[in-house]
Every structure is written in C-alpha cells, then in structure tokens.
C-alpha cells in the first residue's frame, strides 16, 4: 500500500514541469479597416442615418475626444452595415445575423494572431498540446476552439478549453489557465487565443443615452495569441516573461456594475462608467499586496512594469492616482488604448506585446524593471492579477533553483 502510494506520487511528480510557466511568444492581429477617432463621429452618424441628431453628434465628438482613443480597427465597415439595416432598428431581431458574421470572422482573426505567435515560437503547430480560447464575440457549438484546430493544423489530441462571454478579464483568465496547464503537464505547450469583433455591440445613437455613445466610441476589434510553456527547450525556445503567480478575486457588492447578456438585438447590458473606476481604485492595492506579499519580492509599485487592462482612461487614471505611479508606468497601457481602443480580453495581450517591444528596443523610461504585474478587470467586478518576471534577469536563476 505504502509502496503503491509512493509510486502514484512519483508518477504525478514526473508529470509536472520543473520550472515556472513562461510566455514563449506573442502574436496580435486586427481587421484591415482602421478608423481614426476624429473621423468616427461622421462615419457613425452617417452609417446609422442619424445626421439629423446634430446636438447628439456634437456630444459624441466630445465623448470621442475624451476617451483616450485615437484610432481603432473595426470589422464592421460601412458596406457591412448597409447590408444589415436591421442592426439599426432596435425593435428588429438581428442577433442571428450578427452571430453569423462572427462565426467565421472571429476564428479567422484569432488564427491570424495564432499564426504570428506560432511563427515567433519557432516550433510546428502540431507541437501545441493545449488550446485555451476566450471571446465575448459569439456563442457557438462547436466553438472557436474547435475551428482553430483545423485552421491552424493543430493535432486532433490537443486539449481544448473554450471560454465564452467572460468579459474583459477573460484574456488574463485564459493566461492563468495556460499557466496552470503548463506547470501541471511536463512538456505542455499551451496556445492561448483571444479574439473580439464588436459587431454584436453595434447600435445606433439614442437621445439621452450616454452609455451607447461610450460603447460605440471605446471598443475595438482585435486578436491576441500567446504560447505558454515551462522549461523552455533552449536554444529553440526563448522565454519572454515567467509567470510567477496568478490569482482571481471578486470585489464585494459589485455584481451590477458590469453586465452583458444576449438579446434579440445583439448584446444588452450595462457598464457603470463611474462606479467601475471607483471600485477598482478602492480595491486594487489590496489585490496587488495579496499577489506580491507571499513571494517576498521587495519591490515598490514604481519598481515594477505594468500590464493593466486599459478599460478606459478613467480606470488608468484611478490606478495611477491610488498607487502613485510615475507616468511611464502605464504608458504601454495608454498607448494600446490610444491605438486600438478597448478590445475586451485581448487588450492585455497587446499591452504585453507593447511592453516587450519597449524592452527589446531599449525604449523603457527609467530603470528597467525586473518584476511586473498584469491586472485585468471584468464582470463581477472580477480582478485578475498575474505576477510576471522578465526573463533573462538575475531572479531567473533563483526561480530555477526553487
């Protein structure tokens, strides 16, 4: 009995990785249609046949100026919208048509990002052992994960996890799962794919409805992919960041501040543009302390690099203020918000890509940070925190020894 038990323990230990999971490659993709923010009000009011609402359009221009977004990529062109007049009629059912659009567009966009990540990773797609996919854009069976198997040439035995409708924190959640899978399965190479196409959110402007203006001016389309694996096989595999810990928590009394559900006209729901930043501001330092204290990393907030989900500029401003961050600390997040808008869960992958680009190009302001953190926010309010370590810096040896 003791002998058998010991054997099982040995078998289980042998199945686990030796070291921490690491980000081995990152890929991003966007639709071809780029929309400068200063042209969007004209586009939006023209496409929705709302040019007669001149006062509302002036307000929308101001909203667009204040959101911190300079341009976005959107799958829904004027041609696509012209082909779907039902998208503008709130009393007309349009969910089926929207779902038909994202059914192929989302897997295709996800595949673009995945191909870039796989190419950077340098090993064949058939070496992917696990696939974790997250999207809010659609609700199909079989899902985006199933379609990616054939689109990418993954092996039939790849172990798939599909996350639908998890909100803006889904990208970080997918990476948390990937880390758990990689460390619990020796040799695992996990492909994470997140993709969003916001045609399900598209709606015409409504007098007196501020929320619609924010939604139409803030969200963008994009896809991000990450290859995660432990014990990189040098020299073929090169780690970018070690994932040292990952956690998820819910902020008390916050279940109503971000909601989303399927309606016959696409997505319905609510985002409290005022309460979300306040709740994040009130709780973020506790989340971060909980993440770092057990690690014994003696770093102040301004010693870290930051991958904060740029849900809005108000959220970034609140994080800045509460943690007393230097302006350069959230520069990557602000740049991604400015260049792409809020792409739901995809956005933190773009920020991570921007961070490593700055590190690689020597563009970091101030002293290069060895330790960092990813923070994302989603419905609940749910906060995902992930402690990251930049690969190739002194602590790596120590982590290897641990």
């Amino acid at each position: 009995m003791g002998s058998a038990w010991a054997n099982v323990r040995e078998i289980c230990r042998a199945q686990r990785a030796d070291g921490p999971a690491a980000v081995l490659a990152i890929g991003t993709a966007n639709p071809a249609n780029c929309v400068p923010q200063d042209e969007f009000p004209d586009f939006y009011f023209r496409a929705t046949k709302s040019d007669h609402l001149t006062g509302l359009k002036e307000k929308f221009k101001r909203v667009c100026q204040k959101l911190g977004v300079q341009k976005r990529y959107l799958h829904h062109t004027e041609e696509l919208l012209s082909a779907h007049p039902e998208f503008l009629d709130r009393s007309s059912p349009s969910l089926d048509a929207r779902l038909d659009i994202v059914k192929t567009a989302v897997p295709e966009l996800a595949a673009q990002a995945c191909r870039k990540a796989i190419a950077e990773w340098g090993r064949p797609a058939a070496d992917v052992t696990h696939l974790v996919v997250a999207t809010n854009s659609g609700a199909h069976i079989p899902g985006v994960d199933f379609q990616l198997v054939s689109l990418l040439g993954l092996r039939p035995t790849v172990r798939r996890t599909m996350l639908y409708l998890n909100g803006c924190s889904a990208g970080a959640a997918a990476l948390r799962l990937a880390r758990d899978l990689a460390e619990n399965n020796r040799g695992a190479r996990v492909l994470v794919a997140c993709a969003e196409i916001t045609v399900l959110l598209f709606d015409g402007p409504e007098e007196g409805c501020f929320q619609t203006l924010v939604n139409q001016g803030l969200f963008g389309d994009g896809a991000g992919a990450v290859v995660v694996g432990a014990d990189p096989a040098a020299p073929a595999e090169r780690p970018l960041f070690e994932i040292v810990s990952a956690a998820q928590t819910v902020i008390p009394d916050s279940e109503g501040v971000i909601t989303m559900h399927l309606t016959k006209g696409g997505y319905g729901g609510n985002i409290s543009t005022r309460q979300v930043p306040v709740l994040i501001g009130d709780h973020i330092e506790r989340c971060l302390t909980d993440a770092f204290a057990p690690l014994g990393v003696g770093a102040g907030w301004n010693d870290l690099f930051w991958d904060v989900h740029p849900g809005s500029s108000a959220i970034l401003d609140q994080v800045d203020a509460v943690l007393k961050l230097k302006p350069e600390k959230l520069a990557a997040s602000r740049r991604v918000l400015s260049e792409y808008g809020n792409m739901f869960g995809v956005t933190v992958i773009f920020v991570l890509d921007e961070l490593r680009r700055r590190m690689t190009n020597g563009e970091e302001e101030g002293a290069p940070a060895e330790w960092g953190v990813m923070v994302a926010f989603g419905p609940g309010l749910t906060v995902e925190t992930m402690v990251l370590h930049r690969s190739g810096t002194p602590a790596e040896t120590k982590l290897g020894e641990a």
Partner: protein
Amino acid sequence: MAHSLAASFSPAAARRQVTNVISSRSSVSFQSHRMTSVSIRSRPSSLRFKICCSAKKETVDKVCSIVKEQLALPDGTAITGESKFAELGADSLDTVEIVMGLEEAFNITVDETSAQDIATVQDAADLIEKLMLEAPPKVV
C-alpha cells in the same frame, strides 16, 4: 417688469434689496436708474450676474440630486451650488454625461459651447433656467 424680476428671485436678501429699491421709485424710474447706473460706472459683474441670473433653489437642488446620482457619490457628500464638478471627481467625460442627464430631466438642449463653460452646480442651474426661459419646452 419689477414684478417678474421679484418672482424669479429665490434668495431672501436679494428680494429685500429689490423691494427696497422698488418702494422708493416708480417702475419707470427704476428702469431708467438701472440703465444710467450701468453706463456711468461699472457695477461688480458678480453682483450684477447674481441679481439678474441666480437660479431658483429648487433648480439647484434638482441639479445637485442628478449630479450626486450620476457621479455615484457616497451618501452624506455635501453638494451645493458652489460645488465644482472637478472637485467632486468628475472628469470631462463625466461632465458630458451630467449635461445629458440634465437635458433629459429638464427637457432642454444644451449646445456644446455652453456645456463647456459649466464648472459648478450653480453654472448648470443658471444655464438651465436661462434655456427654459428662452425656448418653449419640447413637446414629446
């Protein structure tokens, strides 16, 4: 004229002041005096603005209530006519939302130029009453 001016004043001190002026002169003389006074020497602009344009207390109170709700301010937060939106934690995007809420509540339309001049609750209340006087209420 004198009657309508008196009716639009809410602060008791302002009403007493106007009453005193009225009781000592005929309405025609009052008008003449006021114009002469303005042309001869500058009256402090804040005082003139206040006498001419101060909004009713009930308008200010309603604006306070809407602002408090839209900024999700905690109960017990003191908001008065002098409260500045920036000090209440409102950024410029919040101000757009507040103006839209006020338009809905008072059934008015605020043009962009006027909206950008609003810095305090009093500014908003004053503008609302000015707009309500200038245009008939929109009929649904």
